[in-house]
């Protein structure tokens, strides 16, 4: 049976070129970068070379990059570190309703510690409005965190505009770029951010590695404590093979961005157009244009998401859904809910996220499989 992976926003396969560098490091460069002997120095060199690659990929300086265990840790320590370091200047943090839980949940934790959190609404396309950010800013605002692109619906937020506002008001600005990196340009100066989170396994690197960009001069304090690694900013012996892999993954993503984005945009738009043509009562979730090149999110009326995923899986197609049943959650996707998608349609959502190894044949295969699957599930549903 044909096997097609359309869940690249969940995780990506490791690129062979990334894996090759990582394996070389695992087998041939085991030293502790903190050691002064030759073994340590070799590991240190590998880490610093990777740091340069990551920095170059996002237009930063190497000493502004801190390696973490992934996107979640990057988000967590970005926000907690900035909040605590600026506590005497204010206690107000602004975020939005469609952030990843790695952001929303650390905000909830900070709220228990006396910080005030404003969760901005989004429009029907999942977009935050700059005026709403401006309206929420007060003298006590110390931190704004708005994601670059949404993981479920792919909507791209107006980060440069929010960045300008934050700079004018002297507020630290963080963006979670986990879902935008490798898909659209991520340049820290163009975005106007002080803090930016990256994840390895969303850009054809391995799991367990990520990075936090901290603009030089940003008031931020470490959250983890120990051996003083990462210039005292993140304690713990460095994940050297992971770091090497992240360096290569970021380098490849930046080098191949333009061509890959154009290719995926074409496949994405073909899929959106054809599915809408071939299947009735289908709704596109997210922004029609302002979305990352690889994201498609539909709601099919009267088709429950988990049933749809299971049916596609039987045909060898891997995708995901905002359905609570599919996620093992009590309620459907907080993102779709915040966009005003009715619960029944949120339960009926299907996320298709394209990636590097997908071809036009894969898209055609999905286009062939999807209509009868939808038809079958609809025929089993009671008439509403």
């Amino acid at each position, binding site marked *: 049976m044909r096997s097609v992976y359309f869940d690249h926003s969940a995780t990506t396969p490791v690129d062979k070129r990334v894996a090759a560098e990582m394996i070389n490091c695992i087998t041939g460069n085991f030293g502790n970068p903190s050691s002064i002997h030759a073994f340590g120095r070799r590991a240190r060199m590998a880490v610093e070379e990777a740091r340069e690659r990551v920095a170059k990929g996002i237009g930063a300086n190497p000493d502004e990059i801190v390696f973490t265990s992934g996107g979640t840790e990057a988000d967590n320590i970005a926000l907690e570190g900035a909040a605590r370091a600026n506590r005497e200047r204010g206690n107000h943090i602004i975020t939005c309703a469609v952030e990843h839980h790695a952001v929303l949940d650390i905000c909830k934790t900070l709220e228990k510690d006396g910080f005030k959190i404003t969760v901005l609404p989004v429009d029907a396309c999942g977009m935050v409005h700059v005026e709403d950010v401006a309206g929420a800013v007060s003298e006590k605002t110390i931190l704004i965190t708005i994601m670059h692109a949404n993981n479920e619906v792919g909507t791209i937020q107006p980060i440069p505009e929010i960045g300008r506002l934050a700079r004018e008001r002297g507020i630290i600005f963080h963006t979670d770029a986990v879902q935008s990196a490798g898909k659209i340009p991520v340049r820290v100066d163009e975005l106007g951010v002080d803090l930016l989170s990256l994840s390895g396994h969303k850009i054809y690197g391995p799991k367990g590695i990520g990075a936090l960009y901290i603009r030089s001069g940003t008031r931020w304090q470490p959250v983890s404590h120990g051996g003083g690694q990462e210039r005292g900013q993140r304690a713990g012996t460095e994940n050297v093979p992971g770091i090497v892999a992240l360096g290569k993954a970021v380098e490849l993503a930046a080098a191949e961005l333009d061509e890959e984005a154009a290719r995926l945009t074409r496949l994405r738009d073909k899929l959106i157009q054809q599915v809408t043509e071939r299947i009735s009562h289908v709704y596109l979730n997210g922004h029609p244009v302002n979305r990352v090149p690889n994201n498609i999110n539909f709601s099919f009326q*009267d088709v*429950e*998401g*988990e*049933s749809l995923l*299971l049916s596609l899986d*039987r045909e060898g197609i891997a995708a995901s859904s905002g*359905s*609570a*049943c*599919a996620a*093992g959650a*009590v*309620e*459907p996707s907080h993102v779709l809910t915040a966009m005003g998608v009715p*619960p*029944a349609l949120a*339960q009926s959502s299907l996320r298709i996220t394209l990636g590097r190894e997908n071809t036009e044949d894969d898209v055609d295969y999905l286009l062939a499989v999807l209509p009868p699957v939808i038809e079958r599930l609809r*025929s*089993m*549903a*009671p*008439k*509403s």
Partner: protein
Amino acid sequence: MYSEKVMDHFSNPRNVGEIPDADGIGEVGNPTCGDIMKIFIKVKDGVIDDIKFKTFGCGAAIATSSMVTELVKGKTIDEALKISNKTVAEALDGLPSKKMHCSNLAADALHKAIEDYRNRSKK
């Protein structure tokens, strides 16, 4: 995550459909997740002669609906009333714990259909 039996009943559900002249219809819904199960029965001499279902829901919701129809077809009303949601889950070799409450409502729908049948016969 699902047993082979669940996947079998999901992929090849038994007794899908409606009975236009049903003797009893039972519907249950889960307001949180939006699942809806509808069961139609045809009763002859105290025996469930025919049964069909229509379900909007996850894999477990569809599989439990299918299983309950298979379990009670040809059984007497009294036997059918003894079937519980737990019986259905066991017949499917179990369900993931998260699904035990939200999607395991097919026996409730059956009991409602029987109740509907009894109310109609009283008239």
